[in-house]
């Protein structure tokens, strides 16, 4: 019963953490793209082109490896728990 409780609540908490990290990482990426454009805008830059550049970068990010790495949030804690169980018992 305790084990079920751990799994259910652990999953809920990890989901919240996953969500927070996803939002944070996305926000950081967008800020970086904005800074990259603003620091060195190409010839004939318009707000539309800037938005397109950022949108392009964000689609690349959404399908990239970095985004998938956040899934490690669900993988590492069970591994840690497994290691603790192995060493304690």
């Amino acid at each position, binding site marked *: 019963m305790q084990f079920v409780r751990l799994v259910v609540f652990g999953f809920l908490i990890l989901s919240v953490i996953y969500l927070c990290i996803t939002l*944070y990482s996305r926000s950081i990426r967008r*800020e970086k793209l904005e800074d990259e454009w603003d620091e060195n805008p190409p010839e004939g830059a318009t707000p539309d082109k800037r938005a397109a550049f950022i949108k392009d970068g964000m689609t690349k990010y959404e399908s990239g490896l970095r985004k998938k790495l956040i899934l490690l949030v669900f993988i590492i804690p069970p591994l840690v*728990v497994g290691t603790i169980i192995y060493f304690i*018992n």
Partner: protein
Amino acid sequence: MRNIRRVLRIALFLIIGLWLHYVMPQRDIARVTSTEIIRTDFSSLNRMFYAQADSGTVENPTRDLRLVNTERKATYLFGLIRGNNETMVFRNEDTGWIYPPYFKFDSSDLQAEAAAAISTTEPYEWVVVTHYGWRLRWASIYPNAVSIRTIEVPEGQSPEDYRPFPWVNLIIYALLIAGLLFVRAMWRQFRERTVDPLADKVGDQYDHVSADLSERKGRISRWLGTWRKK
């Protein structure tokens, strides 16, 4: 106001510090003198200082408690010696799946190990008892022994001088601090990118509205002014 906040902050630090001192693993050098089992009736005062019944069994208001009686060497806190060689009693309970997260299920085996390490005649056999928790006599609570291992003595040292280095604690504290900094960075990013622009927008709107209002007032008073005698 400032003093209240200061007191609250100190209280928070104290509580977190005490809690960490309670749940973090500590290691004592000790000599097991006997093991025993006592029947325990918990009160509402000391119930929270005990774990639960053995993993996989049913929780009842009363149960047997495994104890390990030892004589232990003086311990250290931040490098300072505290206490002398004294007797120390450890309880030996499963922590189970939840709290604190030691995931200890092998109380019976540990009790057997403790019994095997009983040493009452010289030369004594010293062991490292990893444990968490406090011994409070007035509340009848004991630290929970997590593991017992015999000491591997380096050349030219007596086992009694052996001082294990708290690597595990170091790693846990480092991870805690890293996590705290990460949460702080997340919070700052959230404020910078989400809350502040929103507040700016609201402030902007407020400015517009109040400018509009004063403009309108100005128009009305100007119109009124046309009726005044010049």
